[in-house]
């Protein structure tokens, strides 16, 4: 399936990315090529095959729900671009 310019715009929005007009052209071409290659998978019948999400058997890991020391708040705020009081500052949402 070909990825058209309008598809690139839609995917870019879902991905929260801006793309320039030039990039739309470029990505449309490159993503189409990649998707075309990937579609070879349709040669295989997988009707009765279970999907593998993790290749080794792993089980859920439980632990006691007890309070432990975590990373210091100050340290975390140190790398934040914008903070105010005890929070990360972002543009107005509502």
């Amino acid at each position, binding site marked *: 399936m070909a990825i058209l310019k309008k598809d690139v715009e839609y995917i870019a929005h879902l991905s929260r990315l801006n793309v320039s007009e030039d990039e739309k052209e470029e990505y449309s071409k*490159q993503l189409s090529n990649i998707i075309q290659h990937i579609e070879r998978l349709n040669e295989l019948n997988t009707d009765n095959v279970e999907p593998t999400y993790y290749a080794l058997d792993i089980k859920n890991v439980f632990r006691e729900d007890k309070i432990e020391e975590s990373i210091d708040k100050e340290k975390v705020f140190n790398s934040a671009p914008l903070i105010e009081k005890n929070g990360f500052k972002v543009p107005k949402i509502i």
Partner: protein
Amino acid sequence: MELFKLTIEELHKQLIEKKVKPSEILDSIYKRIESVDPKIKAYLLLTKELAYNMAKKAEEKIMKNENITELTGIPVAIKDNMCLEGVPTTCAAKMLEGYKPPYTATVLERLKDAGAVFLGKLNMDEYAFGSSTENSSFFPTRNPWDLERVPGGSSGGSAAAVAADLCIAALGSDTGGSIKQPAALCGITGLKPTYGRVSRYGLIAFASSLDQIGPMTKTIKDNAILLKYIAGKDKKDSTTADIKVIDFAENLECDIKKFKIGIPKEYFIEGIQDEVKENVLSAIEFFRKKGAQIIDISLPHTDYAIDVYYIIAPAEASSNLARFDGVQYGLRDTEAENIIDMYKNSRQKGFGKETKRRIMLGTYVLSSGYYDAYYKKAQKVRTLIKQDFNFAFEKVDVIITPTSPTTAFKIGEKISDPLTMYLSDIFTIAPNLAALPGISIPCGFDKNNLPIGLQIIGKPFKEDDLYKIAYLYQKETNWHLKKPDIN
């Protein structure tokens, strides 16, 4: 003696015999870096002050003869996607320029506890997206065997640093071949451990069902030593396996006659460089002569692995990279008036081309209406690929293949065509999708004097098999001892 040339094994001996001090090893390596790294560009950051402090502590331990391990005083360099508290960790991404993590990755905690010394952070493809290190936001790294060529990727800085003696050993990370492929292209020894063998806590995530950290070294013995210290269950990574970590380096001898080695016909296909094929076949002949049983096998779904990978890995990456939104850390666009524009502008400014390409590809295959056709289909074919290996491992103990279809390619040669670039990982991807351990070791050179890599794939958690077989090979060959003439 030039100390920077030595291995972990050799330096450890000299350290415990008190013939050399950790700080003297550091002097030697930093001098080497100063003279050679401007040509190679393996390092993004040197952590000299930290290193000399760590060396001092190691020296005290050695003087007191207390808590000495094989890594005490040994300088190790780190791929820049592993967090070290307070030390800039960028993932070679502009997005994270100047970012200082508030915590340290488990592997680095473990190396620190063992007394290792951290030299600095190594270049890579941005977020580990790439096979050439050309996608670094900062600069490409060059192959020490030919400065016009790539070192492979994404752990290209790690492979080049080991090959050029800019460190004693390094850590890399592997998702689709990012340790093994650069190890092959730079002529060093690189192990991608079984998924779950090594903690991913503090490794900046790319594809969480595939990522593994592994050792990149000058020899098998060094590799086995390093793995021992980083491997094992970690309560901070619930996907780590609760499987005993043996002393991999203690017993590397083996009776090769007991080993059955599988040779999959799908890995010796048209399009692979003649010299790569010839050298891998002569290595197989070496094992046959030594008495190993060589068995022809088939892994029929091999050809589809690349397609499965380029659905699953970008899908997981698109989700993992959602965290780079300009809120908690990293680059932030401060002009935007609403939150969506703030996200979009920050990500536009911070992400490189390949990163955006992979995020979009991943978002597409996960998007409504396409999830079943692409993502779920890929997970089903992943099952078939895994079954191929399960079936093969009923008959053989290990599988030998080339690591990469060609030797190192020229800088710029594949960068404009992502699909061609992706194909340089065709031999490393399938075993990774099946979570299997794999190692790349040098097995010869082509006519341009570029190293060729041999991949040995093992059963889950049987890294010791890989080490034993590779050790026998390195004992009787000298490919891994050859050094590039850097000029």
